[in-house]
């Protein structure tokens, strides 16, 4: 099975306090720690396990700049066979549809049975996989937390739905799946693994190579336009307990007692 996994380099949500920059044009990217989008790791792990069992190869692709190279290498160190970087200034500022358009062009240049994305990334929209599937005219399933290969024509996939329940579907290949965290346990990647793929050549394709109309993607082609970033004025929020930890703990115990939190 030939599998393409779409990945993204994002600011690590756990390692960073995300703040808005002075003008509100972007988040403050001063000293952010970047990593591969958490959901994408699960997708790559799943693809590697499928290929280990059923044969084929895994290609990881990203739309990004030179720095996105590092996330492709990280996923190749996990065991992905090939990397592909889609890079062009014309892609900057793309909305979800723009990214899906670029990925669709890359898909058309290959011959893939299955395409996976993470269920969502830093912007939380969870849109690229479903858009890509619709552009390709192939079936889509989101929030996938189980995959079984039935034969070379179809898969059985579980989707995570409300209440911890799982919706089982049969889906025809080729198809696009967005992968939910928890589907597997992504393998650890050590320094040695990264070193092994450090000098592997990763092909790059630009808008011309892909045959993408530069006007249809990027900021100019975006139908949904992000105007600014801001921190909303919220209600008062929590009463923050500050000062000496010993006093804070006394206060917490007092509150717990008052509210029925201690038995």
């Amino acid at each position, binding site marked *: 099975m030939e599998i393409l996994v779409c990945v993204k380099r994002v600011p690590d949500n756990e390692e960073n306090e995300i*703040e808005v920059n002075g003008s509100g044009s972007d988040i403050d990217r001063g000293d952010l720690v970047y990593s591969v989008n958490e959901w994408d790791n699960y997708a790559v792990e799943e693809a590697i396990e499928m290929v280990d069992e059923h044969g084929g190869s895994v290609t990881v692709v990203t739309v990004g700049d030179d720095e996105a190279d590092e996330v492709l290498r990280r996923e190749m160190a996990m065991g992905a066979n090939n990397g592909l970087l889609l890079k062009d200034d014309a892609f900057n500022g793309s909305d979800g549809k723009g990214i*899906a358009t670029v990925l669709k062009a890359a898909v058309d240049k290959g011959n893939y049975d299955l395409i996976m994305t993470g269920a969502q990334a830093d912007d939380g929209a969870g849109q690229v996989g479903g858009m890509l599937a619709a552009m390709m005219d192939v079936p*889509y399933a989101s929030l996938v937390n189980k995959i079984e290969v039935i034969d070379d024509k179809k898969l059985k996939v579980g989707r995570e739905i409300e209440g911890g329940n799982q919706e089982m579907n*049969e889906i025809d290949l080729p198809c696009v799946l967005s992968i939910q965290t928890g589907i597997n346990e992504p393998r650890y990647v050590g320094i040695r693994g990264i070193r092994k793929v450090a000098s592997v050549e990763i092909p790059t394709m630009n808008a011309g190579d892909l045959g993408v109309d530069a006007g249809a993607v990027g900021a100019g082609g975006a*139908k949904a336009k992000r105007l600014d970033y801001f921190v909303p004025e919220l209600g008062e929020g929590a009463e923050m307990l500050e000062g000496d930890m010993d006093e804070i703990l006394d206060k917490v115990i007092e509150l717990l007692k008052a509210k029925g*939190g201690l038995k």
Partner: protein
Amino acid sequence: MAQLFAYIAHKDGVADDSALELIEAAKKIDGGADVTAVVIGSGIDGICNEIAASYKEVVKIDNDALAYPNAEVVRKALLNVLPNDGIILIPHDTFGMDLGPGLSIKSDSPFVADVVDIEGIDGSELKTIRQEYGGQVSTHVSCDISAGAVLTIRPGSFQPDESKSAGGGVTDKSGDAGDLTVGRRFLEIVEAEVGDVDITKSEVLVSIGRGIEDEDNLEVAEELAEAMGADVSCSRPIVDQKWLEKSRQVGTSGQTVKPKVYMALGISGSFQHVGGIKGSPFMIAVNKNPKAPIFQVADVGVVADILDFMPDLTEKIKEG
């Protein structure tokens, strides 16, 4: 102004809470417009009539192939029945996430996901608000809606319109559904496993998130819970790591809990997590990150490392 449609989610003959919230969202787009409800399924007359109390016009698409809301089939039905230039509001739940992106491509409409508020229209530009980075920052996103749009609306973000004064009627468009053959077929629902402790019945929850850092530290949370007479629950990453059973997970994709007191320890507070906490418990949040969204919903907050906070609190409780 394009015509407004609201997708009515329903299960076992009961409309989802989002059905009345979408009315309010539609009003924020255009206060004067009538929004049309779209009810899709099999054997749905009861729900159509219920919804007609709240929507002036209800479009019914009844077909055996729609008995289970498979987003691929629903998309085909919507594209066959509704105009391509309509503005379609869909709840941002696991179904809406499945339906929205592809529908926007097929109807050649702009798509905005997980809308939490709507500021209004300037010309043909609709200005929406959504969140990024797990709710740490918000953004204004605008799109031209003159040729339609697909918006998924975060459940609970808009007040439900409970007036039920529309006195609407139902239009049966089942005959227009067309060919509903798709490449993805629904098989069955596998129900969540029942765990050793039913956290939906717990009065006091010590709930842990990523801040626990390591499986070995679970013990510290268990000791605190024991000292308090509470049960241990958790957020999604703890279950993803397989450190606790799925039955302990609080959130829209886990359990819905309604305790008296909820301790959110090292939990950032994504909307999916908070969506699983009902009944307005007294909430104490402890997190290293002062910007963690959990502090927006908690009653009391402490900025601290839970690995220091929990054992200290346990000790103090034991001291009595």
